[in-house]
């Protein structure tokens, strides 16, 4: 019993992180109909920025954890957001009217550039940051126990708050309305006076910011990262986005949670050897039986 509960806790925290990163894939797809293959590497960049900010803060003698986490979140989101903006400017905007394949390839190129640029500038070694927040909540259940570290609790909290805020922005604000309008029909939206180019930039920035939130939390929690961490987690988050229905914001969050939890349960109760095989089989099954994902709407040919 305690083991299943512990796996649910593991899966929930992992899944909330997948969800955060999946938002970047799903929003970009929603608005320009393309997969941003550099998104996993944006997450990786945010891990490095996190470590640099944490190091700077400690250099200036700041020890208090709340200040460190809030400061790191703000700075990392700002810089990573700028990366998201720059990627759109460099890799997508000049190719807005070319074939989809061209933009796809330039995104892959962007991903390689980011990886190699970080590898050259920061070194190829594994990096680590020291443990900043220790301690855990331990709940005894019968013979066993469920352990939830404060850091994991914080991950859940920040992830759900960020998702909530983002949902509010998209559903209730003027900016969100413009995003949704651009997503539905870019030409019409631009005729009605929406600067669609700017909206597309903003969507890239939002996606990168959400990846930055994940990057800060995960980097501080696991402590270890290298220039290649974006690859695996990027593919998983992409899977989550497709699972939930690519283009759908709640879908990305739901997909992330489902993927995280089912992966943990599978690894914990059956076999961790085949954990990734399981995740991607899940993706294939969903694509066969529900090609538009769990919450995605089937595409209707506009006449």
């Amino acid at each position: 019993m305690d083991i299943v509960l512990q796996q649910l806790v593991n899966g929930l925290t992992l899944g909330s992180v997948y969800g955060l990163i999946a938002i970047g894939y799903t929003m970009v797809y929603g608005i320009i109909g393309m997969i941003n293959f550099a998104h996993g590497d944006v997450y990786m960049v945010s891990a490095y920025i996190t470590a640099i900010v944490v190091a700077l803060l400690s250099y200036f003698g700041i020890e208090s954890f709340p200040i460190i986490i809030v400061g790191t979140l703000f700075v990392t989101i700002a810089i990573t957001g700028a990366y998201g903006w720059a990627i759109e400017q460099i890799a997508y905007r000049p190719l807005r009217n070319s074939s989809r394949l061209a933009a796809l390839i330039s995104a892959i190129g962007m991903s390689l550039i980011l990886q190699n640029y970080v590898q050259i500038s920061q070194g190829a070694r594994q990096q680590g940051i020291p443990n900043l927040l220790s301690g855990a909540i331990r709940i005894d259940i019968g013979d066993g126990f469920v352990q939830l570290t404060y850091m994991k609790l914080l991950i859940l909290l920040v992830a759900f708050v960020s998702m909530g805020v983002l949902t509010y922005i998209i559903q209730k604000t003027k900016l969100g309305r413009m995003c949704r309008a651009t997503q539905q029909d870019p030409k019409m939206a631009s005729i009605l006076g929406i600067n669609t180019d700017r909206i597309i930039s903003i969507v890239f920035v939002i996606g990168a910011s959400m990846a930055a939130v994940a990057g800060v939390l995960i980097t501080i929690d696991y402590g270890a990262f290298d220039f290649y961490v974006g690859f695996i987690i990027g593919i998983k988050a992409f899977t989550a986005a497709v699972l939930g229905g690519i283009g759908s914001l709640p879908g990305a969050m739901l997909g992330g949670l489902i993927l995280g939890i089912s992966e943990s349960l599978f690894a914990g109760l059956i076999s961790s050897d085949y954990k990734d095989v399981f995740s991607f089989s899940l993706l294939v099954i969903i694509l066969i039986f529900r090609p538009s994902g769990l919450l995605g709407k089937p595409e209707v040919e506009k006449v």
Partner: protein
Amino acid sequence: MSHTIIKKSLLSMAITGAIAVSSFAQAELVIGVAGPHTGAYAAFGEQLWRGAAKAAEDINAAGGVNGEMIKVVKADDACEPKQAVSIANRLVDSDGAVAVVGHFCSSSTIPASEIYADAGVLMVTPASTNPTVTDRGLENVFRVCGRDDQQGDVAASYIVGELGAQRVAILHDKDTYGKGLADATKRTLNSYGVEEVLYEGLTRGEKDFNAVITKIRSVDADVVYFGGLHSEAGPLVRQLREQGSTAIFISGDGIVSDEFVSVAGSPEYVDGVLMTFGADPTAYAAGKTVVEGFRTSGYEPEGYTLYSYTAMQVIVEALKNNDLDPIKGAEWLKSNSVSTAMGVKDFDSKGDLEVSDYVMYKWDNKGKYAQID
């Protein structure tokens, strides 16, 4: 997937570019130093490079090899088999290497060694411990470290004899080295009548191992044996402690790097971690001056640095006594002793050391490791 393919082709383009530049060296004796100089395992590549480069420097300062100066060439396999093959070809074809120190990862050493065998290049690996490296009977392959079956024996007898553990969980990273080591340990454990309570693989490059750790808790393991490298061992041991498990963590020589501590987060997590590794190489009398030499140049010869130094010495001895012919040198090594910074080394007909010297080390709460017993 296309992601990786494109990365590979870009890399090989970069390598092709490098060929044009590096094909000038002629009058010197070219010796390759192959290993993961970039990538997640670059810490080990650095150990290999430092050791081999210092050995070449010392040998050149003493007059070179039969009057020829050694030129060391860095070759980066990033611990990827495919890249290992391509740089092995480069070393042989365009750099004209007569011998190679390396590689590090067994999964790279095995395919690369076949290219060296075809080209008649002598290869001495300082660190590849998988049995297959020498079991294939290639005449040019040697190693100055032990074998995983020997390492597994030491770990398993320690687990059963010293720790008296009955509930052992075995994890590995699905790589040639990691799985080989885990299998060797498992085999010896089973021969002592201890059946492992868990045997599983995890994915290299991943950082979240919470699910498998919960599983370790569920089988109530006293000891966790991990076959793999520090980049996974660090997060693994940290998350193990964070989930409240007090199981003893044991691994092999894949974690013998300061980076194990930094990747784990802080020294408190590695406190008490056990590790099998060759007997302290810095303690050999012959190596004292070498170790001093490293320290005066501001480098602490940790992990495989001295092994790499030794590998270079073995190569040079073989070449020196056989008119710089690598294949004759290989033949010669099988029947002659070589005196190195790590003592006198004798090789058997397969290229393995006659005597291996695995012992148990323990990490402390300062993040340092020391030999126990």
